[in-house]
């Protein structure tokens, strides 16, 4: 900054009293400006004319690298060894049980251990249904979410249980976890763990009906609600929670639903 003169230009009279110094451009500022211009031109020339880069090129290179790192193996034949089936059971508990039931007997989604297969009962057909989903009916496309490896495991589990024909012990995982030692015993916790997927986080209704409006399809007394939860409404997709939750928890969650409904309808 040695070139600073701090000489006033004498504009104050015309600038409403504001004076201006006649200082030179700071060297480092000018240097930065020139550097970015040269860099900009250099980058553009290098990108387009020297290396011939492009975003399509990057995409292709990334796809090739991915194919090398994760070769698209021909789908492995389904394995039905105990370890695979056990791993599949765990995945089923986390991802599938909320709709197909902890015992695979159906709920929102169809029963997987009866004699009927809507989209084909051969192992490969089951694997395809899981991978591609049935979006129009609400079955997600699990391919990109779970990946082929996990899908093979869960398919193996479903096939194994289907062969047994309905004697499946409830899976571990989300639903069955309610029977574990760290069981939630407040109505809110039980509701969150089992009911929100269909009735919504605030009971406003999603797949299942709203529980906080004034309308009760199957009766709105505490007894009615307890009854509906216990026996379910299988034809509409409401699970029979009796064997899953047990009497005590159903009592707690029914009371919770009843109270929440009272509070919500009282407000309106």
């Amino acid at each position: 900054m040695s070139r600073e003169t701090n000489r006033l230009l004498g504009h104050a009279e015309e600038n409403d009293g504001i004076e201006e110094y006649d200082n030179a451009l700071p060297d480092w500022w000018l240097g930065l400006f020139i550097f970015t211009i040269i860099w900009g031109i250099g980058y553009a020339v290098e990108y387009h004319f020297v290396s011939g880069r492009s975003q399509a090129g990057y995409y292709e290179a990334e796809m090739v690298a991915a194919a090398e790192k994760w070769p698209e193996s021909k789908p492995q034949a389904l394995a039905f060894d105990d370890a695979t089936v056990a791993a599949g059971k765990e995945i089923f508990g986390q991802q599938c049980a909320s709709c197909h039931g902890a015992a695979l007997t159906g709920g929102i989604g169809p029963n997987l251990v009866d004699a009927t297969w809507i989209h084909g009962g051969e192992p490969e057909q089951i694997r395809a249904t899981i991978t591609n989903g049935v979006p129009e009916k609400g079955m997600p496309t699990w391919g990109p979410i779970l990946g082929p490896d996990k899908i093979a495991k869960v398919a193996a589990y479903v096939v194994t249980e289907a062969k047994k024909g309905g004697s499946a012990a409830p899976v571990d995982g989300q639903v069955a976890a309610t029977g574990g030692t760290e069981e939630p015993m407040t109505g809110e916790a039980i509701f969150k763990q089992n009911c929100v997927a269909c009735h919504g986080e605030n009971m406003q209704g999603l797949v299942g009906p709203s529980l906080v409006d004034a309308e009760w399809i199957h009766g709105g007394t505490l007894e009615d609600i307890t009854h509906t939860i216990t026996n379910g409404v299988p034809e509409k997709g409401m699970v029979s929670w009796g064997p899953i939750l047990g009497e005590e928890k159903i009592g707690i969650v029914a009371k919770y639903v009843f109270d929440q409904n009272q509070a919500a309808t009282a407000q309106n």
Partner: protein
Amino acid sequence: MSSAVATAPGGTSDRPYDDAIVKKFILATMLWAVVGMTVGVWIALELAWWPANMGIPYFTFGRLRPLHTNAVIFAFGGNIVFTSMYYSMQRLLKVRMWSDFLSSFHFWGWQGIIVAAAVTLPLGLTQSKEYAELIWPIDLAIAVVFLAGALNFAMTIANRKVKHLYVAIWFYMSFLITIPVLHVFNSLAIPATLTRSYPVYSGMTDALVQWWYGHNAVGFFLTTPFLGMMYYYLPRASGRPVFSYRLSIVHFWALVFLYIWAGPHHLLYSALPDWAQTLGMVFSIMLIAPSWGGMLNGLLTLRGAWDRVRTDPILKFMVVAVSFYGMSTFEGPMMSIRAVSALSHYTNWVIGHVHSGALGWVGMISFAILYWLTPRVWNRKLYSESLATTHFWLATIGIVIYTVTMWGAGLTEGLMWRAVDDGGQLAYPVFMDIVNRLSPFYWLRFLGGLMYLTGALMMAFNLIRTITGTEPHAQPEAVPAK
């Protein structure tokens, strides 16, 4: 202001400067600042805790977000720019505004547009172009009102009593010329009904025109007029000569020439041709020095006045404003680099970047000008200097919380979106898992925004008490160094 003969505004005796229009714009600025920032804090809360939308469709995030952006940019930002221009241009040109009718038409027209926006956006009437959401009849009104104001400014410049045009005027002129061009060409549409229209551009062309507009709304609405304001009010408030006349002219021309090309950096990794993406990126990099020219000239002008920065809240606001200008005009070019954009694009990092510019630069310089101007045009002593200092600290800490939080949120989601596991599958395939992870950041951002809003409310209170006070503004005008 009949009581203030001693401080009658300058100008010739038959045509004194019009400060009544300045007062109107100051009041409008304060009103829309509070409204726009309140809506901002509200939608920040909605992101952390959705029941804040009260289950009412008009209050949902998608409708209030454009209301927030339009209110803070065009209502708060626009009104403070016009406030500053009406005051400083008359004094720099030594002549009263050319037409009182146009001044008044400009003021009421602009407020009418804002009210129309505040009604239509919550109703869901929108063209869905960011920062250009307003429906075509309002777009038409913007063009008419803005050009009426621009004509008034242009004729005032033509009738000026000085030969030399101060650099602030150059910056104001770039705003007056570029904004109508951007607004008109981006809004070209064929009306179908009173509330609906179809853009004349389609597909990628539409996107490119939109971001040519969108980026230059930042460049020529939130940058050049505010630099003009800095060039007038910072030397006036500090009483120091501008560091370098040459720097001010060189960085002005460099800035306006380069800014207009940088828009395509909003469309990196899109269907936009590679060469156009490169153009947007390199012009953004070349913008660093021209932007920093403004910061340098601001900070170096304060040499010799740093002792006063410790005590004077107005100078405090200005120093932080200019520093944030320098910070965000470095961050912006970095984010326009292809590799950085690949991580930052579509994340909250972008929101943080915008707000470090908007809260840090635009907001803080605006507050400084309001604190400096209000006592002068009303000739009333500032009600509380310590309240202004408290505002300064609340705002500064609020911005830091906001910006840092959004960096954290942006990096978190950007890295989670792209993460893959050992098998080449997405590590976080369920989008909601990532959204849930952002919750603490959203709460902190709400806190930062709330602090900033609280400061703005303090300012509104402070300035209203100033206007309604009785003690005249007696502070001697700072004399420039000889």
